[in-house]
Each structure stands twice: as C-alpha cells, then as structure tokens.
C-alpha cells in the first residue's frame, strides 16, 4: 500500500540514461521512449541532449540520454556533461546501460555512479549476444554484491526487458526497492586519506551538498581539475582544503609508488572483479568472433581502402540519384502551390502581398525543401554506417592517411558528417581529445562540401553542363573541397597549431545490423532539423531578402519606357540588395560575379541554400504573369557563362561559411577569434581560388561562350 502511495506522489520522474559508447544505449533509449523525443543541447556546451518521455504505471518518466562515456573523469567534455547533469540536475534515477558481454569494463562507470550515491538501475543489454558467447550470470548474487542495485537483462533492439527497466526505475525512485549503498574500499591508505580529507571538507558540507563530501574527497585525490576549481569558488577555506589534498596525494604517491588516481581506478576494477568472480561465468572459449572475420576483409591493408571508397561512392550515388524522383514531386508541388496562391489575385495584379507570398515565401522555402530527399538519404546512409559499427573502421582505415596530414583517424568521422552539414560535424569533433587536433579539424570542416551547397551546384550544373558532365563536375566539387581541406590541415598543423598528433585510441564495436527504428529516428531527427531551419531561419531570410530586393521601388516614370525584362532589372538595381551588390561589384568583378550574384551571396551567409532561393527571386521578381515565368536555368544561361558558373561554385564551396557555422565555431572553440579566423581565412581563400579560375579560364578562353 505504502509503495502505491509513493508512486502517487512521484507523478513525474527525471531519469538519466548513461552507459559506455557502443553499449546499445541509444537502442534502449528509443525502446523506452518511442518516438516521443526531442533534441536540444546541454546548457553552455553544444553536446546534443536528447530527452524522451514515457508513461509507466501512472508515472511520467522524462528520460535524458547522457553522452556515452567510459568514465566520469574530467578528461572529456562528454564525461563532464554527464557528470554535471547527474550532480546538478538531481535525476531521481540513473539507468546505466551495460554491454553484457563486457561486463567488467562497463561496470567501471556504474561503480562511479555508486560512488556518487545516486539511485541506480543497471541494464545488462545485448544479453542475447552475451548468452550466445557463453556468458552465464547469477543476477541475484551480483545484485546483492552491488548493494541491491536492480539488474535487468534486456535486448534493446528486440524490445525485450523494457517493461522490466521501467518497473525497476519506478521501484527505485519510489523506494519500493531498497538499495543499501556498498562502501567501495580503495585500500587502507587511500581510505584513510579520504577520511581525513572528508573531515577537512565537513565544515563546507552545506556548500558541497552533504552526501557529496566523501565523493569530493575522492575526486580531490584523483586530482580532478573542475572539482578543485569548484572548491576554489565555493569554499571559505579553499586554500586549506587544496593544500590538504596536495599533501594527501604526495603521501599516497610515496607509499603506493604511483599516482593515486591510477591506483583508485585499479581498486575500482578490484571491487568489480570481486563482484564478478562468482557471478559471471563463461562456458565457451570463443576467441575469434564473426566481427573479427569481417574485419579481416574490411580493414585489410590492401582491400580496406577500396572497400571504403566504394561504400562512400554508393552513399553519394544513393544521395543524388535516388533523390531525384521525390525532388521532382516536391518541385512540382511548390510550383502548383505558387500558382494556386498567385491565382487568388486578378491577373496582372502588382499586389505586394501576392509578391511576398509567391516569391518571398513559397519560392524561397520551396527551393530549400526540394533538397530534403537528398538530405534524408544522406543522413540515412550515415546513420546506417554509424549504427552498423563501420564508421569506427573507417576511422581506423583512414588513420594512416589522416596521420600524414597531421590529423587523427577520428577526425575523419566529422569530415564525413561534414558532407551532410558542417554544424553537426563541428559538434562531432568532440571525439578528439587534443585541442590542437580538434581546432584543426573544426577549422577545415567547412571545406567538406555540405549538403546545403549541393543546391547551388545542382542549379549551375543543370543549367550549364550536358547530362553526361553533371555527375563528374559535381564529384569534382567534392574532391576539390577535400583536397583543399587536406592542404589547409597540413598548413595549420605546421604553423598555427603545430604539435604532436594526439595518441590514437578507439574501440571497434562489434558489427551489428542497424535497427530500422533506430535508423529512422536518427534520420528523422536530422531531417526535421533541416525542415525547421527551412521554416524559421530560411523563411525569415527569404522574406528579408525579398524585401531587400523589392524596396525601395524606382519611380514608375523612370522605368515605364523599358521592356518587361529591363523593368525587372531596373527595379532590382534600385533596391537595397541591388545597391549593396553593386557596391561590391568592383571587388567581385575579377571573379566574374555581377551584382546579382553578390546579392544572392549575401543570402548564402544566412544559409548556403538561400543562394538558390535568392537567385530564383532575383530572376522572377517583378514578373506579374505567372504563366510567363522564366525557368531559372534559362535565365542563368542568358546571364552567365559556364566559366562564371564554375567560379561561383568554387567560391561557394571554399568560402563564406554560413552564420550557423560561425555561431557553432564560436561556441565550440570557446573563442570568437577562431570563428572569425575561420570565416575570414576561408573567404580569402575562396576569393583567390575563384579569381584564379576565372582569370586563367578567361585567358585560355575556356567556357566563356
């Protein structure tokens, strides 16, 4: 009865989901919360925060997906974020997902939650695989040795054990399930020092939250920098506490012969081994797994690279070729919508509202949404590569090559994601532990041609190149970007960010068939972010640019003698955007850009794909008879040469990172200087490259006809 009442009281619980990378945490998260998820960021850092909701026995569970970590030290942003959430946000329960086949290693994180004294539920995930590998668990005994922490066996991708996890969460949160914390001992010497430090900290307990005193003492012995920082800020006797900690570390080092933090880590494993000794048995000595067999081929010294390049080609082919059909449909739908809305006004009307709706809103957003199929396919492919475990192999294969340009194999993953979008790619550089490696990778990422630039290439290649040449030209754009990225990385690594390459350590997860649900959720979340961008930033910018290109209007008598085309051009030239574009013409003329391109480039700063929307507005503005609307391609062909098109594409590829990139670069690098350096450096580079292309091309008479 009493537990029922407790459930009544706890109507809403915050549950943090933790676990090692590759423990199947995301699969459990998806199974727990279904599609009721939303993606945001942890405050202050751009670490992705996924929150999902589910209801169980009348209780709402807000499940927060913490970043996958091996530990709760302060050596990586992910670990700090996970730790901070658990300490500051007080989730009622932490659910730690364990890979049942690697229990000891996975329990290392669990032990650290136990040290924090947080109500814990442990999930032995992928227990089917563990069983197949011959592991047998005595769950009852293991749970008892861990202080009564509930242990739930689950198979995330088949949805097994999910109800039991929910039961355990509610049970632990409501106190129906009693947990008595087991004291973890680190050996007499360390235990004694923890006691002494805790005594020093005791007077400050209010400021540290009482149950954390021993934990803070432990962390001080581990020489944990953020904890020292915190002591310095909140403690009255900070100097005394830190001096006591330093003394303790020095004493322990002398007695034990090594850094206390290493010994403490070792003692945690000692505790785990003790608990697993009698409770985890392996009956089969399976030394070579299916994954090893696949790896023998996939990471083969000779075959590895061609297989990788082949897969990348398949991804590209699928993105562009399969995307064509839905794109045509979307294009058609928006054209129809534009005509339908335009038709609400009498023919020949020059209503400002009609122009705003048709040209500003529908054309602008349509020009962006049309690329949604491409983006969905690309993210689907990336999700499959990631979830299957291949992405880690790609990093491994590429390490040899990345090393040559002074980067880390892991830098390759953000670079691949960069082909989708620079923003998540910059965020993905968090996997790099060295700041130098991370900054170098972040700085060159905009050179990986993102999907938002694809519309620009598609527009120009479709207009200026015959069918047969479009593919190769597109491919070349990506290759040029990648080659320049390599050169830039090499340059940065030998000048501004000189230094030793960070040691390379990475886990190769076993290969797994990606789950349909997980892949679709992942793809949908990315796709939705793109749609949201189209609905907000791009819609706003489209309207702003429409206004900038429409106003101020020239006086009717100044243009009444001109033909329709001429009137259109005159109107544009007279507008704010036209004037700004014109002001820049002397600077961009050597690149072959006219003021219209400059104007559209202004839009590209907001988001690269706006360039396309802007060009379509620039060339359809002022025409009042919808049936006579000129297709954009014909307008482009009339106004530009193929050489100019290539110069514009090169400029868009290399330079002018969008404002979202600047913002994320600022927050991720922690300094506006890096963001500014990146923006100015790349734009300067783009200017020089476009200048060379246009001037040399003109001199040789290439593509000028």
């Amino acid at each position, binding site marked *: 009865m009493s537990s029922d009442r407790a459930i009544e009281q706890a109507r809403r619980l915050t549950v943090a989901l933790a676990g090692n990378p590759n423990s199947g945490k995301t699969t459990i998260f998806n199974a727990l919360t279904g599609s009721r998820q939303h993606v945001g960021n942890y405050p202050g850092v751009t670490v992705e925060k996924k929150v999902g909701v589910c209801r169980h026995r009348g209780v709402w569970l807000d499940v927060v997906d913490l970043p996958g970590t091996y530990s709760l030290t302060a050596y990586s942003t992910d670990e700090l974020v996970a730790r901070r959430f658990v300490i500051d946000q007080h989730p009622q329960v932490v659910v730690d997902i364990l890979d049942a086949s690697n229990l000891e*290693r996975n329990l290392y994180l669990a032990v650290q939650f136990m040290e924090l004294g947080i109500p814990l539920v442990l999930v032995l995930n992928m227990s089917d695989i563990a069983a197949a*590998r011959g592991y047998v668990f005595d769950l009852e005994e293991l749970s008892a040795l861990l202080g009564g922490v509930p242990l739930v066996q689950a198979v995330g991708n088949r949805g097994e054990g999910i109800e039991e996890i929910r039961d355990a969460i509610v049970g632990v949160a409501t106190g129906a399930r009693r947990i008595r914390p087991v004291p973890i001992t680190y050996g007499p010497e360390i235990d004694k020092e923890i006691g002494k430090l805790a005594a020093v900290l005791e007077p400050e307990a209010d400021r540290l939250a009482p149950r954390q005193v021993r934990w803070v003492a432990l962390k001080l012995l581990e020489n944990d920098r953020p904890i020292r920082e915190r002591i310095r800020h909140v403690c009255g006797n900070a100097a005394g506490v830190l001096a006591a900690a330093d003394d303790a570390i020095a004493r322990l080092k002398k007695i034990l012969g090594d850094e206390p933090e290493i010994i403490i880590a070792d003692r945690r494993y000692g505790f785990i081994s003790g608990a697993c000794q009698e409770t985890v048995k392996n009956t089969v000595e399976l030394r070579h797994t299916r994954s090893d067999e696949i790896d*023998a081929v996939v990471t083969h010294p000779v075959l590895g690279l061609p297989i990788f390049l082949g897969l990348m080609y398949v991804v590209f082919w699928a993105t562009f070729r399969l995307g064509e059909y839905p794109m045509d449909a979307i294009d058609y739908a928006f054209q129809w919508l534009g005509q339908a809305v335009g038709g609400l006004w009498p023919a020949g009307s020059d209503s400002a509202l009609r122009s705003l709706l048709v040209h500003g809103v529908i054309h602008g957003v349509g020009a962006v949404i049309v690329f949604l199929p491409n983006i969905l396919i690309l993210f689907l492919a990336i999700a499959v590569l990631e979830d299957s475990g291949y992405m880690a192999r790609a990093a491994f294969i590429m390490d*040899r090559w990345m090393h040559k340009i002074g980067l880390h194999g892991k830098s390759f993953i953000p670079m691949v994601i960069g082909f989708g979008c620079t923003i998540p790619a910059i965020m993905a550089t968090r996997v790099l532990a060295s700041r130098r490696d991370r900054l170098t990778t972040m700085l060159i990422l905009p050179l990986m041609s993102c999907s938002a630039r694809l519309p620009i290439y598609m527009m120009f290649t479709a207009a200026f190149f015959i069918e047969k040449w479009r593919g190769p030209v597109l491919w070349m754009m990506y290759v040029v970007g990648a080659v320049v990225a390599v050169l830039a990385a090499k340059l940065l690594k030998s000048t501004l960010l000189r230094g030793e390459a960070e*040691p390379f350590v990475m*886990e*190769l997860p076993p290969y797994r068939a990606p789950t349909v649900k997980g892949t679709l959720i992942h793809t949908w979340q990315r796709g939705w972010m793109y749609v949201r961008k189209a609905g907000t930033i791009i819609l706003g910018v489209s309207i702003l640019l429409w206004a900038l290109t429409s106003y101020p209007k020239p006086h009717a008598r100044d243009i009444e003698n001109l033909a329709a085309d001429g009137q259109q051009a005159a109107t544009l030239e007279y507008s704010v955007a036209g004037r700004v574009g014109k002001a820049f013409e002397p600077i961009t003329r050597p690149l072959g850009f006219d003021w219209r391109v400059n104007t559209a480039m202004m839009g590209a700063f907001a988001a690269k794909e706006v360039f396309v929307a802007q060009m379509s507005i620039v060339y359809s503005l002022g025409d009042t008879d919808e049936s006579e609307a000129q297709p954009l391609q014909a307008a482009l062909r009339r106004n530009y040469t193929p050489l100019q098109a290539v110069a514009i594409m090169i400029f868009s590829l290399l330079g002018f990172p969008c404002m979202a990139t600047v913002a994320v670069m600022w927050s991720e690098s922690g300094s506006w200087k890096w963001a500014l350096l990146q923006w100015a450096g790349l734009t300067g580079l783009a200017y020089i490259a476009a200048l060379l292309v246009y001037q040399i091309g003109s001199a040789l008479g290439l593509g000028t006809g």
Partner: protein
Amino acid sequence: MTRFGHAEQPGLVSLASLADGATAQLVTVQGGAGLRSRLTAMGLRAGVEVRVIHNGGRGPFVLATGELRIVLGRGMARRVMVVPTRLGGSDTGIPTGTTAPPE
C-alpha cells in the same frame, strides 16, 4: 603484480613488438595520468590479457581483450608495456585473419 614500475622488469616488452596472434599480459602504460586513466576506463588496465589482432607495421594496431577490440595508434602501442604469454605469427601456426582454435 608489479605494475607501477617504471623500473625495468624482466620480460617486459612493448606491445608494438608483438606479432599477430600473440598474447600478453598488460603491465603498464608509459604516459601521463590522463592518458593512463583513459585507457584504464576503456578496459586496458594492468593485469588484463591482451591479444594482438593486427599489428599494422607502420599503421594502427588492433588488439583484443575479452570481447573488446581496441585500435591504438602506433605511438600508443609502443607505450603499452606487456609480458608476452604466447608468441604470435608463425610460432603458433595461426595465420592472420583466420579463426584461431579454441584453447
């Protein structure tokens, strides 16, 4: 179990010197506390048995411990000090990339 020794220990060799298929017991990692802490958290700790899956010569190095497969850069593999328990390569008759017989 000696593990803190920066002092030489008989039979102590660098992981990078082992051939494919060799097994060894990890003794210590030469490096700063941060690096050692990270490796420990990933499961590469003193006392575990490791097996060389792939010694890539100049490229990265793949090793197994339990069911885990971990890639190390070349420089890292050199810093991991082990005591070999079984030689790999031709000594064991295990050709690279095929299934090893269960013990």
